């Protein structure tokens, strides 16, 4: 009897202990999570409350000092590069471990391991486009060509791993506790993979959509609706620039046959809308102090923990500060004691598709000219949480992986298309940043950039010695006019890329006479540049606003440049609204409600400040009108892209009664005015609903900028309804989910003055007071002091740690 009592109690106890150690559906294991000594309660402490004067870090040649300023920005003082990057790895992991691992899980197509089968399709896509494959190539390339950098990558990984190895349950980031897994070791490969992931985030192509458009519209109409060089383009390298090199020749095949059926494939995920950036530098001749000033604000999806992590990295040879990417070595956008640099995305179609004709169902060979080439098979093993391993076979051709085949994303069609992308070729982007961090002048900067392949960037530069420069750097395929705009026939060897534009012929400028250099994702050059340059996503608004402002400015101060980064001028509205009001005519003025909105629009100064109401009215009216104009295109079953806003406005202005505005399936003849009026009516309906449901339609309240945790389901870790102006196409490009992910302004005088801010905080821990503490300042256009610190500087220190 007495035994039975014990065994019953014992069994109950074991059952209870096991039950609370396991997840139930979406509910994480309760006891490890709620245990006040080891669970999430321990994540409520901020970093300054856990500060330690000394931490153990092995394999250092000398002790490393880390001084945190009041914003928890670490300033790392090391005696050589290997120590520096080992410490960078350790410190970054200390504040951002979960994020850096999660991002590389996404990059490696391994999210299913963490979140289960709902991520399986995403993982398959990531793997089929060959990101891991590219990172493996990259690792081999660096090992072979640049063993010194590889050693630094390994030092960084060792720093991360030493942190992971001593990590207690209490200090484990809360996301691991909720999702119920633990960090694995970091590696040089993962750092390389992260940089490939950046390429994936920033590079798109619309070959699929253009192939369909060519079939639907014909080439003449395609060129009319989607001109490659619309009138009024203001390129990155100033117009009229003399190139001063003899260009390589490219031969265009005399006859080209495109794979010509409509392609009913789900397009690959493209870079998020609103990813873009601004950067510029003004020479001393235009500034009040006579010193060059450089500014950079990359626009990306707004996430928490923030993509960026600020650091100062100092050795006896160099001292650099700015924004780092957790997982990558060095500073990505920043400055040192001599120079400053910044990046914007240099979009260009560097991703092409080839139709593959397999010999038979085994897919072991494919046609190439008059012979058959062998394929290779890469088996992707995708582990899925709570389920069995998913095996995905990807066929590789000499072009690259066959992304679309019968097993994946092909919608009713038996299609095979291989992806050619320079991300699959060995490259060493890390080297560029290692060298830039220690650059002293324009020559060093150019040398650093020579190592850079992808994602192509517009690198702005300014130096203390007075130089300003811009260079568009990437490994750009040498293409004949029109090559790669559409899917090509992979069986025809004449469709191959004919090499690459040599680095020294990539467009660049140094100290142009206009006194400034700038880029905002627009066309890189005027039409005199001797190579074919094409992309669907060149931007038309920010660059013109920026260049017009810079042209008109003199006696420029740092505050002026900060103001320009925060500029809410809505150029698209300023150009479109007068035309729309003209086309609308007087019909609507009898309606009292319509009159109210029209009054708002008529009084508007075209600034999309957070409290303005007119931007909301314009925005909805424009969206409706635009959708209506291109109804015929959107109604196609095959995926297409629509003409740009810029081009659409030009049509409305110059040819409002042209047949492009006529919809085929209606009895009437539509003109631009028809669409504008219809759009206005629909806008009234939407506004009535918004005012009834939400009331206030001021711009910030309507666009609802949200800074979202990397796991969107973790809603309470996100910050909603950030009160700030701007929007897509404005210099302050803050839309609902994307915007300035980092703002930096640097004046390169005798003493460097630097300012920076990003929408987040240094800590990756949602429980820390440093998790989102920059957001309000960022939303108000304020900055943090980013001046370089000396190791003995006493003021403004939060705490300091010796690594030994």
């Amino acid at each position, binding site marked *: 009897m*007495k*035994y039975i*009592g*014990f065994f019953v*109690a*014992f069994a*109950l*106890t074991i059952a*209870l*202990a096991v039950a*609370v*150690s396991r997840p139930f559906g979406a*509910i994480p294991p*309760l*006891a*490890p999570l*709620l*245990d*006040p*000594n*080891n669970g*999430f*309660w*321990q*994540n*409520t*402490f*901020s970093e300054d*409350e856990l500060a330690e004067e000394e931490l153990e870090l092995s394999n250092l040649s000398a002790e490393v000092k880390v001084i945190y300023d009041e914003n928890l920005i670490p300033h790392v003082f090391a005696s050589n590069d290997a120590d520096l990057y080992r410490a960078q790895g350790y410190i970054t992991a200390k504040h951002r471990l979960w994020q850096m691992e999660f991002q590389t899980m996404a990059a490696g197509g391994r999210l299913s391991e963490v979140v289960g089968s709902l991520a399986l399709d995403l993982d398959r896509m990531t793997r089929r486009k060959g990101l891991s494959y590219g990172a493996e190539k990259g690792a081999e390339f660096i090992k072979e060509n640049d063993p010194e950098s590889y050693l630094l990558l390994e030092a960084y990984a060792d720093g991360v791993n030493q942190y992971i190895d001593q990590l207690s*349950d*209490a200090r484990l980031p*809360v996301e691991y506790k*909720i999702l119920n897994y633990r960090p694995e070791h970091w590696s040089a490969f993962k750092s390389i993979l992260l940089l490939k992931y950046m390429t994936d985030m920033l590079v798109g192509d619309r070959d699929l959509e253009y192939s369909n458009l060519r079939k639907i519209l014909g080439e003449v109409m395609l060129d009319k609706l989607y001109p490659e060089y619309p009138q009024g383009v203001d390129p990155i390298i100033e117009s009229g620039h003399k190139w001063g090199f003899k260009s390589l020749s490219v031969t265009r095949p005399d006859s080209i046959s495109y794979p010509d059926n409509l392609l009913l494939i789900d397009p690959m995920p493209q870079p998020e809308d609103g990813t873009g950036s601004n950067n510029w530098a003004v020479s001393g001749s235009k500034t009040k102090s006579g010193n060059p000033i450089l500014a950079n604000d990359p626009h990306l999806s707004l996430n928490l923990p923030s993509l960026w992590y600020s650091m100062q990295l100092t050795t006896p040879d160099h001292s650099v500060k700015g924004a780092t990417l957790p997982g990558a070595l060095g500073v990505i956008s920043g400055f040192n004691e001599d120079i400053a640099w910044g990046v914007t995305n240099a979009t260009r179609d560097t991703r092409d598709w080839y139709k593959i004709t397999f010999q038979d169902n085994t897919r072991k060979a494919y046609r190439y000219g008059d012979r058959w080439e062998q394929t290779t098979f890469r088996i992707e093993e995708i582990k899925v949480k709570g389920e069995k391993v998913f095996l995905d076979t990807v066929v590789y051709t000499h072009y690259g992986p066959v992304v679309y085949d019968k097993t994946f994303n092909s919608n009713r069609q038996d299609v095979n298309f291989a992806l050619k992308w320079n991300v699959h070729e060995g490259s060493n982007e890390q080297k560029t940043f290692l060298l830039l961090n220690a650059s002293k002048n324009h020559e060093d900067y150019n040398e650093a950039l020579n190592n850079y392949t992808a994602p192509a960037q517009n690198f702005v530069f300014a130096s203390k010695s007075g130089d300003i420069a811009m260079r568009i750097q990437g490994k750009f395929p040498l293409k004949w006019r029109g090559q790669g705009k559409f899917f090509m026939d992979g069986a025809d060897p004449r469709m191959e890329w004919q090499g690459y534009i040599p680095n020294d012929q990539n467009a660049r400028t140094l100290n142009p006479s206009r006194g400034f250099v700038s880029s905002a994702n627009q066309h890189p050059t005027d039409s005199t540049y001797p190579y074919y340059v094409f992309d669907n996503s060149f931007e038309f608004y920010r660059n013109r606003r920026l260049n017009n402002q810079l042209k008109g400015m003199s006696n420029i101060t740092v505050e002026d440049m900060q103001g320009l980064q925060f500029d809410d001028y809505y150029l698209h509205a300023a150009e479109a609204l007068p035309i729309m009001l003209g086309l609308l005519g007087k019909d609507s003025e009898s309606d009292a409600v319509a009159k109210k909105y029209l009054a708002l629009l008529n009084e508007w100064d075209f600034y999309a400040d957070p409290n303005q109401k007119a931007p909301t009215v314009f925005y909805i009216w424009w969206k409706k009108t635009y959708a209506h104009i291109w109804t015929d295109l959107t109604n196609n079953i095959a995926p297409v892209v629509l003409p740009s806003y810029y081009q659409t406005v030009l049509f409305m202005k110059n040819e409002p009664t042209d047949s492009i505005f006529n919809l085929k399936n209606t009895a009437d003849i539509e003109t631009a005015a028809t669409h504008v009026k219809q759009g206005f009516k629909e806008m009234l309906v939407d506004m009535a609903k918004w005012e009834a449901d939400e009331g206030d339609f001021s711009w910030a309240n309507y666009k609802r900028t949200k800074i979202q945790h990397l796991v969107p389901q*973790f*809603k*309470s*870790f996100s910050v909603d309804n950030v009160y700030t102006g701007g929007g897509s196409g404005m210099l302050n490009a803050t839309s609902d989910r994307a915007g300035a992910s980092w703002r930096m302004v640097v004046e390169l005088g005798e003493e460097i003055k630097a300012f920076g801010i990003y929408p987040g905080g240094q800590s990756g821990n*949602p*429980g*820390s*007071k440093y998790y989102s503490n920059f957001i309000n300042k960022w939303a108000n256009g304020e900055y943090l002091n980013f001046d370089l610190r000396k190791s003995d500087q006493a003021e403004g220190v939060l705490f300091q740690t010796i690594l030994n």
Partner: protein
Amino acid sequence: MKFILVTFLTALLIIIINPFLPYWAVMIFIAILTALVGINGVGAFFAGGLGMGLAWLGQSIYIGIISGSQLPQKMSELMGLGSDMVLFAVTGLLGFLLGAFSALSGSLFRKSLKRKPTNIYGG
């Protein structure tokens, strides 16, 4: 008296060893404690439960106050509990259950080892 002693010792055990050991190791120690002290089943259940429950509740409240962090509120929203008050209560309750059953097992284990007096009438 033993009841208060076991409650107190359990709580003390949590505060001293839980920072270094996971919850299941703490459960073993509680069982050992009640087995050593020798307290009846009902007493062990409530004393162990109260000891661990109050310790966890107290610790979570203490941490919540000194850190001033929003995390408890964020976590309870994430878990669909609404208010962070519920999360404090759930933490305490979970501590109670774990402590109670561990203590009960320990107590009954001691009892099961006690030799039955076979020779009660002497001889």
